């Protein structure tokens, strides 16, 4: 049986999270004794042949002008049709804002279970076990799949994409069939200022909290972020105060992130904040209170006044770049 991967595209480009899913698919494929097959819905080919390098044997491409924008009713029907044709043992989605609607729909259509937001997957002779954080990351659940195919969505940044896989990456036309009538139309997409990378997909995040004292001081965080090539995040306290938009909020009622480096500036480290960032690879905390809970999870803590420490760190990082 093969491993089917939903290949997500936006504006004519395959989204990076789909390569992460392909990376896992390549690792799982031997246990299922089949190929890695992609399925993609797009107005035209978003460069799928390049996915051979990321481990894809072949991709089914369904084209239609309306596929430029996501429509759950339509897309779920097409993906379910591809599942019925390919008969995979596993179907993988990246847990993106699109797939958070698509994957459960496909599961309901096929009548199989879905393990969402998985952070670990093992295959023991074709029997899959997925691990996924629950209770806002305070616990980890292991699940198994009594039916085939097993459906999983993967937390971004938890699975490593492959390069140089040397697979064929053949692109095959897939007839989507008659499309159901659309009843939800994306009228507009307003890009975030500066077209910045989304928090969930960032390698480096610098987040600011109430310790910054006011919205105007976020420029300290922005400057450090710029020096590091990072995206800016925020605690709920500053989002609720209206200093930052909700899209920037990290935590239980915001975004769950897992960057390589997370820098927390003037954030106390409340349990609901930790829930959203404690699977980051490396955490740096800057806080004037040595007893702040954020230091319990910080790999590297600096106790001090952020108004002095942050500009000094920004300077030091900028200097590094010059010598690099």
């Amino acid at each position: 049986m093969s491993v089917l991967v939903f290949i997500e595209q936006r504006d004519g480009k395959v989204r990076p999270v789909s390569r992460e899913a392909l990376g896992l698919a390549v690792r799982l494929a031997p246990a299922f004794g089949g190929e890695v097959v992609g399925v993609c819905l797009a107005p035209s080919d978003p460069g799928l042949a390049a996915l051979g390098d990321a481990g894809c044997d072949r991709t089914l491409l369904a084209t239609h002008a309306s596929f430029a924008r996501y429509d759950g009713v339509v897309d779920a029907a097409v993906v379910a049709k591809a599942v019925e044709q390919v008969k995979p043992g596993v179907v993988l989605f990246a847990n993106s804002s699109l797939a958070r609607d698509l994957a459960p729909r496909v599961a309901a259509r096929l009548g199989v279970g879905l393990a969402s937001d998985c952070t670990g997957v093992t295959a023991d002779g074709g029997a899959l076990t997925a691990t996924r954080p629950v209770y806002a990351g305070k616990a980890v659940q292991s699940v198994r799949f009594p039916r085939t195919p097993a459906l999983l969505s993967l937390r971004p940044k938890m699975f490593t994409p492959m390069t140089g896989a040397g697979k064929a990456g053949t692109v095959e036309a897939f007839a989507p069939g008659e499309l159901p009538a659309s009843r939800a139309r994306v009228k507009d997409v307003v890009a975030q200022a500066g077209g910045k990378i989304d928090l969930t997909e960032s390698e480096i995040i610098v987040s600011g909290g109430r310790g910054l004292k006011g919205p105007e001081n976020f420029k300290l965080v922005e400057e450090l972020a710029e020096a590091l090539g990072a995206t800016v995040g925020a605690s709920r306290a500053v989002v609720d105060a209206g200093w930052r938009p909700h899209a920037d909020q990290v935590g239980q009622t915001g975004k769950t992130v897992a960057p390589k480096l997370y820098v927390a500036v003037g954030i106390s480290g409340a349990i609901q904040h930790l829930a959203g960032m404690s699977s980051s690879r490396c955490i740096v905390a800057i806080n004037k209170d040595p007893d702040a809970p954020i230091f319990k999870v910080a790999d590297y803590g600096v106790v001090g006044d952020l108004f002095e420490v942050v500009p000094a760190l920004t300077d030091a990082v900028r200097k590094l770049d010059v010598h690099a």
Partner: protein
Amino acid sequence: MIQVVCIKQVADTETRVKVAADGRSLDPAGVTWIMNPYDEFALEQALRIKEQEGSGEVVVLSLGGAGLPTTLRNALAMGADRAVHLKADLVPDSLAVARALAAEIQPLAPAIVWCGRQAVDDDAAQVGSMLAELLGMPCVTSIAKFERAGESATVERDIEGGREIIEVTLPAVFTADKGLNEPRYASLKGIMAAKKKPIEEKPAVLGEPNLEVTALALPAPRAAGRIVGEGVGAIPELVRLLREEAKLL
């Protein structure tokens, strides 16, 4: 117009997770049970729509165990008209839940079905979209803004790097995100009125499980934190560690 709000009772977000003796579930000892926080946004929006229109019915629907009526009473006190409690000792996987809820919702022919973005216990974020598929409705997840215009609604949601503005033909399912509104507290009058509102109880109709939970465990603890130093003087060492030990810069 009928609106159905699906509500899950969950452990309070402050709960310290302890694994039960079965090794697969939360030890319920000492846990405070609350309405899933995202479901409060969903219920609030439904109540606002009803108030704006000056008519209609808001039905809250929940699948769960014996302790559920407290949460349902709270929803009625906030202003819902009636509640349906689908009784099940154990809350099964999302698809089984969605099927049981859909069977109850279908005959009501609601204009809008509301859910929360996700339940903060299983963090699945599945039931809303599954309901939509089972009911043959469109769904927009994690909405942060809602405006009704006759037979359709315009909603907004955050996606990676931007915000989508979506026009939806009703009937539809929406899942509510934080930021959609500011949920009200139940007033004393509401609490009194809720005592007279009906909670209908019936057994949940559940099929075979679609997922099997084999274990619940506490996450591997992070290595204990380390303080590099104090103030600006700590910066050279911090940069060295980030560069040489963490290999990040």
